């Protein structure tokens, strides 16, 4: 009997020992796994940085504006002059808001951009540049900096691809992405996006007017059944 008891005791001991071992083993393993996960995360971050090999290119607008001259020369050619040709030597009218109060050159122009003056954005001291609200000069090519002062919400969306058209790649590890700038779509003088005309239309059954003869006949036929 004592022999059986000691045998029983030995078996129990073995069981405990193996359980303890298993627990130990598992905890070591999980520590390992945790460490390797951390390492992986680091690696994937590093590789993510490395992956973005291609840039997001924002198209720059052209430089200081020019104006088309009315009329043509004897050879029938049109010509344009830089706005600064006149504006660099003229006294700036800081109050002006509308075309009506400007010289003939500007009569055809429309302005519909809030209630701001010309010199809110144009630079009275440097006619080949624009100005920010704090008076500092900004190049025409960097007009987006100017727009973003008031339209920060749009600028924020733009920065996250949620405003403005683009093409190229969604995956910058495979190729670049090209984006429009503000004035590609919005005329700064009349910034509201223009109306468009619908061109292309598929000819499918969903394009049938919903009150067409055809459909009514169809329903009538159904009713009879």
């Amino acid at each position, binding site marked *: 009997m004592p022999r059986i008891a000691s045998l029983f005791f030995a078996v129990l001991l073995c069981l405990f020992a193996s359980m303890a071992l298993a627990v130990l083993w598992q905890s070591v393993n999980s520590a390992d796994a945790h460490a390797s996960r951390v390492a992986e995360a680091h690696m994937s971050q590093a590789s993510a940085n490395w992956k973005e090999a291609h840039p997001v290119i924002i198209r720059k607008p052209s430089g200081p504006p020019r104006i088309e001259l009315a009329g043509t020369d004897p050879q029938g050619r049109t010509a344009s002059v830089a706005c600064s040709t006149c504006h660099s030597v003229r006294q700036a009218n800081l109050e002006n808001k509308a075309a009506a109060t400007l010289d003939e050159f500007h009569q055809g122009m429309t302005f519909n951009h809030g209630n701001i003056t010309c010199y809110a954005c144009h630079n009275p001291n440097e006619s080949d540049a624009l100005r920010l609200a704090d008076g500092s000069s900004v190049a025409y090519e960097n007009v987006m900096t100017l727009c973003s002062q008031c339209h920060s919400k749009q600028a924020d969306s733009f920065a996250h691809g949620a405003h403005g*058209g683009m093409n190229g790649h969604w995956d910058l590890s495979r190729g670049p992405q090209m984006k429009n700038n503000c004035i590609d779509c919005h005329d700064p003088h009349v910034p509201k996006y223009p109306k468009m005309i619908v061109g*292309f239309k598929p000819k499918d059954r969903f394009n049938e007017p919903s009150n067409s003869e055809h459909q009514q006949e169809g329903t009538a036929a159904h009713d009879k059944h």
Partner: protein
Amino acid sequence: MTNTEPNNTQQAESSANRSLPIVENFTRRAVVKGGFATLGAAAFVAAVSPLRQAAKSTTAVEFMQQHYTELSPEQKADVIARLEAETKEKYGADVTIADDRPIPGTKFVYAINLSVCNGNGKCVEACHKENNHDRSTNQSYIRVIEMPKGTMDMEKGSTTYSGIVPKDDKFYLPVQCQQCDEPPCVEVCPVKATWKEEDGIVVVDYNWCIGCRYCEAACPYHARRFNWKQPEVPSEELNPDQSYLSNRVRPVGVVEKCTYCLHRTRRGKLPACLEACPTGARVFGNILDKNSNIRWILENKRVYILKEELGTKPAFFYYFD
């Protein structure tokens, strides 16, 4: 190949409580036979007349072709070479048909800004050209719906508008395949010719589809199109940059749908409809990338999905500024 296989056990389970004649083996002939038994020969023949037309132009090799997910790389290469040769013969154009597979770690999601979409339909046209749609019907995978303000119920809108847009009392809702995470179209296909891939794109093997159009009826977004006739595309207009599961020229009598331009997007490029959008309303990206545009939109904008109550879980979102 293993991970693209549809989940058989799940399919079997869900088919048990369906009343439609579901065939679990992978033979089209069995399905056709089953159809005859159920429907009565004459009615069935009338119902599948485009199919008969298709059968005429089907070669024996084509008929014997395996399901896409069961093709070995060599078989795939043979099939693709055959399809390229057929396109050359029928359309007189040299095309390349690639076999673009999902990029590991991507799940594609689309979003449209309804505050800026003005309904001009450039996306509809871009899809038409990019995906080699039939010229005579102007087919496209996208419909832009003119909607009365104050509802997101797409059935209340109309696609017949024309002229100058946007109209003052309307907004515009472009609808294409929503690449549902619970796609009813995949559920109903009796031959598993359509399935969802790892990057979320729901694809169709046009060579396996029997043209029964169950999926077209099952799709709550009217996103699927049926080829009533062989697409007509002039050879010089054919987009030669093709993929087996997307824009290769489809045979008559099969169903097709938007594939998020997988022949572009699985190569890192933006979809054609997005590039064509002049208002910048469209946003596309990988939702698994924490820094993606699409993630920012989901976290920062008021986002809607269409027919949410159906539980289809679209990978397509609409938002307002």
